[in-house]
């Protein structure tokens, strides 16, 4: 009944321009499930035209946050599993020619949704699951996996408690919170000694609202006295509802610690870096412990020179391993974004499952579980001092963090020496 005035169309135009110009950025093409069109001619291996009457594909389920605040990682992890499956299928699959089919699910970042999605995937015939990126979601999915006797390989989720329930069907690739905190403290001491720096006191800023931040902090705090580090302040904050941390950092500045420790997600980590510069925080090092910012190339993009010198003891791919570099290169070509560590772990998880199925000689969930328990996988692309092996509880016994540092605009591994790409530096960017 009302005719649309001209300005209404103008507004549509503005919105359209906004959306379109954003889309002009490298968009991530969604690769299709299974061995769809290969982007380029990779050596077709020994995969001749397969018989049509092939056995049913092996279904693998993946649950990650594909929407919501953590979708940047979730979507990459989902794509990484697709990429691994595509490679495996192109190489002829497992068990003499059976291919994989990927069932993707969106946890939306919610534990309840993750749980129902896990049930759905199991009902649709998934024989193994990969998940979840968040400890809260993983706890629920692990319970479903155990109850349904379907093995779950956790790519990313840090809370210790997930594997303290006596589960038989759950395995974890990454270092847990205790390993993160304990090795974080130990590496800090080794690093300080190697640099000849006196490091006796530290202040800790951590995500105080999720189990992740608090459990890593607690593990670090338990180990700290043993390595001669006194925590003079432990400041929790809400990583998802914070617009400024100047006051908190002023408080820390008053205590004049040697090191600022940080455990949290990306946005808050960036905020801490900026606000620490604002208050001219007087510390010798800023050291992330399983922190989500200071080992990301994007941090360098966003913070520029400010990013220099930041350290982070975190999970990572093995930057000293050519195979890891090739995988990341391929991912970037295929999906247009640098592959994050979370995605590397998801990719690795898929190969661990394929290895277990091959060794089990069967795609039955219980058989896969038994094979997973005896995993001895040396050909991985993670910076661990040994093969991937799981203990009784399902923890990867060789899982370790590595310390990374931003040096001249690049994130490089600096500790331990076995996987170091460069010498660590003792500096703080705003003091240079």
């Amino acid at each position, binding site marked *: 009944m009302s005719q649309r005035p001209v*300005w209404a169309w103008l507004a549509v135009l503005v919105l359209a321009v906004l959306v379109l110009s*954003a889309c002009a950025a490298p968009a991530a093409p969604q690769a299709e499930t299974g061995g769809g069109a290969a982007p380029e001619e990779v050596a077709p291996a020994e995969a001749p035209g397969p018989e049509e009457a092939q056995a049913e594909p092996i279904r693998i389920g993946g649950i990650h946050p594909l929407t919501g605040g953590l979708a940047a990682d979730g979507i990459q992890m989902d794509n990484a599993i697709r990429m691994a499956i595509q490679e495996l299928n192109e190489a002829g699959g497992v068990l003499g020619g059976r291919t994989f089919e990927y069932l993707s699910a969106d946890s939306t970042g919610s534990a309840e949704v993750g749980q129902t999605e896990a049930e759905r995937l199991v009902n649709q015939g998934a024989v193994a699951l990969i998940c979840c990126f968040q400890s809260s979601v993983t706890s629920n999915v692990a319970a479903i996996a155990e109850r349904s006797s379907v093995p779950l390989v956790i790519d990313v989720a840090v809370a210790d408690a997930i594997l303290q329930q006596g589960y038989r069907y759950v395995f974890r690739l990454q270092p847990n919170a205790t390993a993160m905190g304990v090795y974080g403290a130990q590496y800090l001491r080794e690093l300080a000694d190697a640099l000849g720096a006196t490091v006796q006191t530290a202040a800790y800023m951590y995500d105080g609202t999720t189990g992740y931040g608090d459990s890593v902090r607690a593990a670090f705090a338990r180990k700290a006295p043993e390595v001669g580090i006194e925590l003079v302040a432990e400041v929790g904050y809400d990583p998802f509802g914070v617009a400024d941390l100047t006051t908190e950092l002023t*408080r820390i500045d008053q205590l004049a610690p040697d090191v600022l420790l940080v455990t949290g997600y990306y946005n808050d980590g960036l905020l801490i870096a900026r606000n620490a510069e604002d208050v001219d925080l007087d510390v010798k090092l800023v050291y992330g412990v399983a922190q989500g910012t200071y080992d990301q190339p994007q941090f360098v993009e966003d913070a520029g020179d400010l990013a220099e010198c930041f350290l982070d003891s975190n999970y990572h791919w093995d930057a000293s391993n050519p195979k890891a570099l090739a995988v990341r290169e391929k991912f970037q070509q295929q999906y247009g974004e640098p592959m994050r560590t979370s995605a590397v772990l998801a990719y690795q998880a898929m190969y661990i499952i394929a290895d277990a199925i091959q060794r089990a000689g069967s795609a039955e969930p219980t058989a896969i579980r038994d094979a997973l328990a005896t995993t001895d996988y040396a050909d991985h692309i993670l910076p661990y001092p040994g093969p991937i092996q799981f203990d009784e509880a399902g923890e990867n016994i060789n899982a370790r963090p590595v310390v990374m540092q931003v040096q001249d605009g690049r994130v490089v591994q600096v500790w331990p020496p076995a996987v170091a790409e460069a010498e660590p530096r003792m500096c703080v960017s705003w003091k240079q």
Partner: protein
Amino acid sequence: MDRRLLGLFGGLALLALVGLGVGPTRIEAWFAANSVVLRQAMVTGLLIGGVYGLVAMGLTLIFGVLDIINFAHGALLTVGMYLTFLLYDRFGVDPYLAVPLVGAALFLFGGLVQRLIIHPARNAPPHNQLLLTLGLALFIENALLVAFTATPRAIRLPYERDPIGIGPLVVDFPLRIWGTTITLPKLAAFVFALLLTGALSLLLQHTDLGKAIRATAQDRVGARLVGVDIHRIHLVTFGLGTACVGAAAALVLPFLSVDPQVGNTFNITAFVIVVLGGMGSIPGALLGGLLIGLTQELSVVFAPGSTKLLGVFLVFILALLFRPQGLLGRRL
């Protein structure tokens, strides 16, 4: 009423007792030890509070005139931040020059939303309208997720740390006064926010359009009787409300990274401010913004380890108990 007053005095007495129990010397010592942090908290709180006030002003304006609780307010802030980011990233437009551009764009966008989505539902029950804006918020959030992915984006002003000359006076940034730090982006955001608040108040008080808006807020039927085009006023008011958010978006981008969810941070705070200041009150929104900014920073000092929202919601609950109409609770 009596019981509430009794509760208030009882609470104060309890607080005094606790103070006496802790001992005046220890309290004094605490303040001495924390004086710099306290000052920094107040400075940061006020600076951030100015921006909160601007965001809340848009919300309260829309509520006052259209009687709609706009849950999409935070999402519109996110739209404004992305627009500012694009202008800066693609065309090198300074965020402060982008304030009027983004404000105008969001004015148009808000008008469009009002005409296409809110207006057709104007006779629906309030909860339907509320769900409508909630749906709009979810739609915008997810559309932004598709367009920009969840990867956060941030900008860093190249002149953020340059000294600025005002006549013969040269000011170094960040400003360091009395042990506190004031950065250029936050100071600029605060000053612009106050200016815009003032401009909007003037517009409402002294122009025909402003009078028509206030008349509509006071009595829709009466306004129509004296010849005010209600539909047009609704459209313009919604546009003005979203323009506030657009301006605020351009002002916060230099110190806050943007992702599709960032508006949620401001959404909750803005609602608390609107209720605290008095629903529909423009000066109330500014006052509420400054108070909530101060509260959230001071709560970090007094209750370290808590998140900033502890103090905010304490104030919120107290306001609802003792002054449910809000501090300046009177329609426009």
